[in-house]
């Protein structure tokens, strides 16, 4: 039996009927057509589906949609305000932190939360924060650099 839930995604309120077993990832990708959030494994190993749930990073593949009832959800589609890239997005683009780009949405969400909580992370803190987001293309080098540059840009 479907359940009616309401939640805010990137600031927009939605009311949806969902099956109880539906994951937040499926809700985002299939019901709301927000396909920026990626499914790399479906079982919480890769971090590709990371969204912010009430400001905290969460695997959307291991979060049931009904658990997000009443929550605020932020996805990669919400990062650029009025078409202006966030400083993290800009740094990822300019520093070459994006290759295949499949980990990028999750990586950006994790990094967004990091910089909110800790505006001046050192390299170790950056590496620790993204250690649940796997990337197979970059060796993480340019991702770490981009996050550091974004933090610097935010304080200029």
């Amino acid at each position, binding site marked *: 039996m479907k359940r009616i839930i309401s939640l805010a995604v990137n600031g927009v309120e939605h009311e949806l009927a969902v099956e*109880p*077993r539906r994951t937040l990832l499926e809700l985002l990708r299939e019901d709301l057509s927000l396909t920026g959030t990626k499914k790399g494994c479906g*079982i*919480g190993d890769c971090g590709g589906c990371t969204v912010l749930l009430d400001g905290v990073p969460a*695997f959307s593949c291991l979060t*049931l949609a009904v*658990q997000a009832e009443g929550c605020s959800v932020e996805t990669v589609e919400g990062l650029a305000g009025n078409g202006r890239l966030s400083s993290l997005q800009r740094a990822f683009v300019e520093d070459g932190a994006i290759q295949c780009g499949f980990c990028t949405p999750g990586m950006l969400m994790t990094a967004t939360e990091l910089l909110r909580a800790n505006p001046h992370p050192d390299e170790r803190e950056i590496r*620790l924060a993204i*250690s*649940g987001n796997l990337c197979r293309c970059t060796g993480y080098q340019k991702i770490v650099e981009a996050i550091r540059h974004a933090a610097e840009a935010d304080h200029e």
Partner: protein
Amino acid sequence: MTLPRFDVLVPETVEQACSLLAEHGGGARVLAGGTDLLVDLKRPIVQERLIEAGGGDPGRFTTLGDGEPGAIDPWGSGDPPPDVLISLHKLAGLKRIEVLDDGRLRVGALATAREIQRVPEIRDRWTALAEGADSLGSPLVRARGTIGGNICNARPAADITVPAICLGAQLELQSPDGSRTLPGEQFILAPGVTVIEPAEILTAVTFPALSARTGSAYYKLGQRKALEISVVGVAVYVELAGDDTVQAACVTLGAVGPTPLAARSAAEVLAGGKPTGELLARAARAAAADATPIDDHRGTAEYRRLMVEMLTRRTLELAVERAGGRS
């Protein structure tokens, strides 16, 4: 992998949660952070069930058909999926972490590893617990995974459970019939099996007050520095007396037995002794003898036993130092 069909019930109070559990009996599972339960519930793609073909021909197999009578399970997957998940996410009271007036630490069952990591008192005093929380999975697992889920999932390698037991965790369990408190070390019976009653919910984990001269540590050994399942985990707790001898000690081992394992002979070696390098080494050897590891694809029993010795010595040295003594 898809999730099987189930209903999700969302109680507003612990009492409601317990009565829902009582109502649904064995067909219900409790959902906390979901980082273990939902993974377990996702069905693998490769057909799991084979049945022996009819006609008494023992050499032949037929693939499955879910729930076919006589299904055998060569892949060893377990119980039938639940009909109902009882999600505790609205029970905000179970998230609270507090140091009680009497000096005990009380951690709500729904406190996440990430929340535990960030409490200064826990880092400072119940250090092994903080280090266990640090070691769990990855930042994303820590943001969802709860102490209650880690304990109730009852895995021998569980990174919060092993130090929690070491630090003398008392588990507060509530059911429609009332509540009870159990020592953590009596809770887990076998992998995935606990003494919890069908209508019971773990609501909080309480840790004894610590004297000034205690120290603890947890070390997780794996192949990479995040997203690991322990090859060996060692938690130790040491309390020193005024004369610098060991007043009390506890060594708890992860991933070297069917449950988190108390290395009792190690604790006996330590009790009353001066925490010299020699004593700690002896205790470490005792811990290795207490371990009952097996060979699996993560490591051999031989390596695990050896690592129990190395890591027990190291964590003991660290704990003694943290207790203000010198090893």
